[in-house]
Every structure is written in structure tokens, then in C-alpha cells.
């Protein structure tokens, strides 16, 4: 299991080198998108409208940050822990197909549709430690901008400049491996052993 440091935009070749279980520290431009921002981006793309910036090779972070604005209008990150990624499963594959982002960051894992899209287009899912909001904020050098504030601050499209943001665990790589699925399978396999400890029958 390797420890890798990458700066966005990341090429498909670099992404393909990552394996599930690797540790990643990310620098460069990343953007935050939750349910609403994903939907709006896909809709705009399909209507042929121009997006605020090119997502290609960038990292998208499932996060609704706590931000504050100072007197000069500059935004600052107070806390930025990951939100549960499974909510994005229903459209993450379409998002990857259209925008060719290279990294999806979140917590709790994603499923088959996303895993398939990541394999096809060269993208990875990187898990950030749940609740580790201070660590996350430490890895963000600066808020570069924000779009779609009409969605509300947690749902808006925030653009961050990351500086060794991590540690991130590659949980889905671009070769079809999904760590969360592997762990679920392991837990299933271990269920009888757990039953044995408590003296329950193994059905």
C-alpha cells in the first residue's frame, strides 16, 4: 500500500496507478458538491450550457462546509468534514461520465454504479475520516471562490485550494476494486465467528 501525493488536475495515467488501500494526499484545486450541485451540473451540461469552470481532472468533495466571510468578503473554512457519499450514488456515474473528474472524496463508501464508472473513465473514490473536520480544514489553504450560492452555503459549489489534504484512503480504484464492499464481505464471512463468541447458533 503506497502513500501518494498528487496535485490536480490529475491525468488518467496517474489515477490508474492508484490501488485500493493506498493513502493519498491531495493538493491543488478541488470543489465541493453535494446532491443539489451534482444535479445542477448534470442538468446544465445536458442543456448545453457552460459551467463555471472545467471539472476535468479535478477532485470533487462531498461536503457541506461551515464557512464564514470576513469584512473584505473573503470566505474562510471553519470546518469541512465529509458527508455520506451514498446519497450521490444515483447520479455519480453520470457526473463522472460527463465531467471526467479524477477523484471523488467522501465518507461511507459508494456502490456498483460508481465503481463501474470509475473503472470505465479512470476515477477513484477517496475516503476521508468521518468527523475529522479540523484536519480537513487544515488541508485547505484557501477558498478560491463559490458559485451557485442560491443553493445555500452547504449545497453551493465551493472551490478550494488544497494543500496536502488528507490522509485519504483510496476505497474504490479504477480497476473495479471496492474496499467497502470487500469489508462488508469480510464482515459477512466473520458473522459465524462472532456468533460463536456469544454462544449463538450459526444460522
Amino acid at each position, binding site marked *: 500500500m503506497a502513500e501518494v501525493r498528487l496535485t490536480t488536475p490529475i491525468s488518467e495515467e496517474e489515477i490508474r496507478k492508484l490501488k485500493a488501500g493506498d493513502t493519498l494526499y491531495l493538493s491543488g484545486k478541488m470543489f465541493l458538491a453535494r446532491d443539489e450541485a451534482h444535479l445542477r451540473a448534470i442538468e446544465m451540461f445536458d442543456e448545453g450550457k457552460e459551467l463555471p469552470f472545467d471539472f476535468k481532472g479535478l477532485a470533487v468533495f462531498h461536503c457541506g462546509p461551515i464557512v464564514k466571510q470576513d469584512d473584505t468578503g473573503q470566505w474562510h473554512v*471553519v470546518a469541512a468534514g465529509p458527508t455520506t457519499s451514498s446519497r450521490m450514488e444515483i447520479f455519480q456515474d453520470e457526473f463522472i461520465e460527463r465531467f471526467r473528474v479524477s477523484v471523488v472524496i467522501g*465518507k461511507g463508501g459508494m456502490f456498483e454504479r460508481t465503481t463501474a464508472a470509475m473503472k470505465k473513465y479512470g476515477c477513484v473514490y477517496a475516503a476521508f475520516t*468521518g468527523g475529522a473536520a*479540523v484536519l480537513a480544514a487544515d488541508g485547505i489553504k484557501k477558498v478560491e471562490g463559490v458559485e451557485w450560492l442560491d443553493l445555500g452555503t452547504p449545497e453551493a459549489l465551493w472551490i478550494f485550494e488544497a494543500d496536502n489534504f488528507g490522509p485519504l484512503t483510496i476505497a474504490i480504484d479504477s480497476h473495479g476494486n471496492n474496499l467497502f464492499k470487500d469489508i462488508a464481505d*469480510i464482515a459477512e464471512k466473520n*458473522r459465524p465467528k462472532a456468533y460463536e463468541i456469544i*454462544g449463538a447458533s450459526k444460522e
Partner: protein
Amino acid sequence: MEFAPIIEKVAFNLMKYSATVLPDNAIKAIKTAYEKEKSTTGKAQLGAIIKNFESGAEKSTPMCQDTGIHIYYVEIGADCPIDDLGKFREALTNASRKTTTEVPMRPNAVDPFGSNSGDNTGRYIPWINWEIVSGDKIKITAFPKGGGSENMSTVKMLKPGVGLTGVMKEVVDWMISAGGQPCPPTVVGVAIGGGADIAIKIAKKQLMRPIGEPHPQKEVAEMEQKLLKAINTTGIGPMGLGGNITSLAVHMDYAMRHPASLPMAIAVQCWAARQSAAEISADGKVKYLHHDIKD
């Protein structure tokens, strides 16, 4: 004597410190888990958690962006010379409101028929658990509870015939399906007996015990140990990314049950095992029990 002004100040401190600094027993439990974790991924997660809460404590910022729903436990000594008991609720509510802007804590009180109140208060919130105890002191515990782990709490009405083994099986099955969702390593509070409401109250209260301190009754302590071992056999690990430490401890307790029922409750605490307590004596002196708080 008037206690409400003291209570407001103390409750503010307790809520603030609970959000920003983990109690020593939780720090120790997570650091021990780090030593014991065999999986590299699991160890990396625990390492990140440790770095995160140390950095939060240093900067006096909340260790997690979800600063929870505000809960207080108040134990009032029957012999405490209190003249303003009726003002206690208001004092605690004021304290919670103040933490929202001054810590800051995330506004987490949402009206199901409206919107976010914006200040962590509203109908029934902060929730206050009152208890009259013997003695002449007042004890207050601030216990903010995060949503991710609370979503994994449950009550089940079992058939008494399944017995204690049936109870343990429910716990194991439940924690396997919870997987990484409650931000493990977790503390699992288990209670049986009483009724649906009684069981979940007892289960939640177990989360306030020093992590890993066994139940004083031998049979219960043994069951706690078995459950912990079983949960940690699953391999779910820190953050559900694999490892041998899925839970830090299982804390169990019970009440008498109705002959026809076997209620059981599971209350789940994430790694951010936040709480802070203080004792106020009859003369108004304050002693903080978890944190070194001045003023």
C-alpha cells in the same frame, strides 16, 4: 440561594469544552486502539482521528463539524438549598444558545414543521434529563450527540424466549449492518428491560460511563466483554475501512422487565465521545469533572 446564573455559566463551559476537547478517558481509549489496531488502513484512520482531536483541542474549535443535538443531564441533590429551580431550564437554554455563536457550534435544531432555529434551541431542545438524588450538590453533564451515530441507535421488542443470547445476537447483527456509518470506533450502549422508552434511556446513559469501565455486576460485565469481542471479530474496523477495532467498548445495563416482554435498546456513540460534567456545591463552588476549566 440562587443557582441559575451559576448554572448558565457552567453549562456554557461544559458545552464548549465537550465540543472542543475530548475527555481523558476517550483520548486514552482511542490511543490504545491505535496501538492495538493491526490493519494499516485502520491504523491510518485512528491516526487521523487522533491528529484531528488534538488539533481541535489546541485551536479550541469543535473536533467534528456535527456538534450534535444539545442534551443535558441534571442531578439535583434533595438537600441543596435552591431558591430558583424554576429558572434552570432557561439557564441551560441560554447556555446552548450562546455556544452556537461563541464556540461556534453548528445550528442543529430543526423544526420538523419549519426550519432550523439557528441557535440550537427550540421545542424540547436542549433536552434535559432531570433526576433528584441524595446529598446537597447539583451535577450537570453536557452531552451533545452527533447525528451519524445517533441514526444507528435502535429499540427492539424481543420475545422473552430468545433469552440473553438472543439479545447478543441482535447487537452483533445490528452492528454488522451499521458498518462504517456511525464513524467507528464506537462505544455501544446496550440496555434490556423496562419498556421501549426505559431501555433506550438506560442504553444512552451507558455512553457516559468512562470508556471500558466494566459493569459492577459480574454477569453483565461478562456479557459486555463477549459482545465487544464479537463486534471486533467482524473486521469492520475504524471508519468501516477494515481492522480489528470496530468498537472501543460495550457498556450494558438493565431494568426489571415485564413477564411478557424483553425490550432491548442499542445506543451508538461515534469516536467523538463528547461530554463534560461539573458539580456545584451548596455554597455555589464549582468543580469540573472532565476538563480543566478556569473561571
